[in-house]
């Protein structure tokens, strides 16, 4: 088995409409853009481009692979004008792809990133060749169980123990949560700008006053658009079978919603995997993605 546990090299930087954005851009060929999940201002977890560390290099052998830190996440600047909304996240992602002058891309979105990928495709079809959605409760109809599984961690927020507990509960095998992964999360959490986003989201309650209500509104018309058949791009829905936060039935419901209008829809399940199948079984995930991208190029 290939060694996927290599830390990412130093990223590149791009000014996206005033937002300093950190990204990676490796390999050549069809452009694949990886969009991770999570959101700014959470104190017990923090995603960054590192989330794709088991995939970036492997996929870059066949494709041009781009992954970037979303607005307010990882090393990318926080939203201007305190616009802590998913709408701003999607706009930034779209402008980032535009600024890189990428050809139409294959979007791969995980969790909240799956929602962002789908919304981007629905708003700007010309940007997108295909979409891969991975364990996205944010996008799927039905009841999400994140809070059921992850509320009130038994460790102080922001500590290594807390971060580890959260990711272990997201995963099937606790061993997948390596020290390196925890390091990457802790590095993001320690950034002054990330601490500022925590103060906004948790301290000033922008999470419940702004982010979540706006996402819920947007999600309503996003699902409506999918149900109307507005997507019109090939989609594969990939699911880790043992995810307790976004259970398999939600993936099936999402697939059926998409497949009603889109012939080129596929549904794939990877066993013994929780919320992060591309980290728990990188070889299988990478093969699946490579096949789908090649078939829709």
């Amino acid at each position, binding site marked *: 088995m290939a060694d996927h546990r290599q830390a990412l090299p130093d990223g590149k930087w791009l000014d996206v409409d005033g937002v300093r954005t950190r990204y990676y851009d490796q390999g050549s060929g069809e452009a694949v853009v990886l969009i991770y999940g999570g959101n700014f201002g959470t104190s017990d977890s923090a995603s960054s481009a590192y989330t794709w560390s088991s995939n970036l290099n492997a996929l870059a052998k066949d494709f041009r692979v781009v992954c970037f830190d979303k607005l307010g996440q990882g090393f990318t600047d926080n939203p201007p004008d305190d616009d802590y909304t998913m709408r701003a996240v999607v706009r930034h992602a779209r402008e980032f792809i535009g600024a890189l002058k990428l050809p139409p891309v294959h979007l791969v979105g995980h969790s909240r990133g799956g929602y962002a990928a789908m919304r981007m495709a629905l708003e700007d079809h010309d940007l997108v060749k295909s979409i891969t959605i991975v364990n996205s409760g944010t996008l799927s109809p039905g009841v999400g169980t994140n809070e059921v599984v992850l509320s009130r961690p038994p460790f102080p927020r922001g500590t290594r123990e807390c971060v580890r507990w959260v990711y272990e509960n997201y995963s099937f095998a606790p061993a997948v949560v390596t020290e390196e992964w925890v390091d990457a999360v802790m590095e993001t959490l320690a950034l002054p700008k990330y601490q500022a986003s925590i103060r906004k989201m948790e301290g000033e309650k922008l999470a419940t006053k702004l982010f979540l209500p706006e996402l819920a509104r947007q999600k309503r018309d996003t699902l409506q658009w999918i149900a109307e058949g507005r997507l019109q791009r090939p989609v594969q829905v990939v699911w880790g079978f043992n995810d307790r936060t976004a259970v398999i039935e939600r993936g099936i419901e999402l697939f059926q919603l998409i*497949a009603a209008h*889109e012939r080129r829809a*596929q*549904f*794939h*399940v990877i*066993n013994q995997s929780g919320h992060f199948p591309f980290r728990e079984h990188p070889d*299988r995930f990478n093969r*699946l993605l490579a096949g789908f991208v090649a078939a829709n190029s």
Partner: protein
Amino acid sequence: MQNLTRDTFTVKGAPAAVLRNAPARDPLIFIHGGIPGSSPYCSGVHIWGGVLDRLAAAHGVLAVDLPGHGETPAGAPTVDAYVEWMADFLSAAGIRSCFAIGHDLGGLVALELATRLPSLVRGISVVSSVALAPTGDGVENVTLAHPPVPLWTRNSQRWAFEQLSYAPDHITEDFLDACVAAAQQPPHRATAAAMRDGALDNEFIPSLMRAKGRFYELCRGPGIPVPVQVIWGSHDRLGSLDQALWLYRLVASRQTAAHFHVINRVGSFPFREDPHTFHQLINSFCEAVFPHTA
């Protein structure tokens, strides 16, 4: 069929009809489905269609006519006998390591073969295998209840494939020619006669129930010893997505390398209706299971 030729092996002194390309390492073994003399369509190597040729471009491919199909003489009409015959066949063909792809009943045969000979059958794809899925106290499935008679004529088989498909495009005249030819072969005629005379109810169905029982016992216990891929059509009228997911749950409970794939807008023959996606799924699974095939 540029990459494939018909060939005959000798298994326990009797001929075994196959479709194959040049021998290669870790070939893909295709085991068709259908119950001879009972299913209203005639299965055999022809059922796989163009996907074999696609796969033969990068893999060794060997598709068999099970006993009672094509030119392979009939044997005992039981699942156990099919499994036994396949084991003998792999031995006769000199196969030491392979990946087996089974459609419908062939999925059950592939699974039993892998359970018995895991170092030989090192991974399996189970395709639209309603035979393996739990049915619980299901309601009667009437999809194939009233085929036009006489059975196994061109029109009757066309009807059966239309019932089992999302779209009829794959049911070409060439394909129906092959199905009608299979129906007229002595092995199919002999099996059909035997099934009509009681073999279906007295031998085949009991053997199927026993095999299913062994499968569920296996899933409660040590599990399937090799990687498994379950492939299903979104519009399979013989087995619902719910049944497919239950089958996958059983498989996945003990086998780490278990994948589940749903192909959209296809019925009970996903490899015929969407050979492109089927090809892609077999490739990505084989490459993950046997990294050297990449």
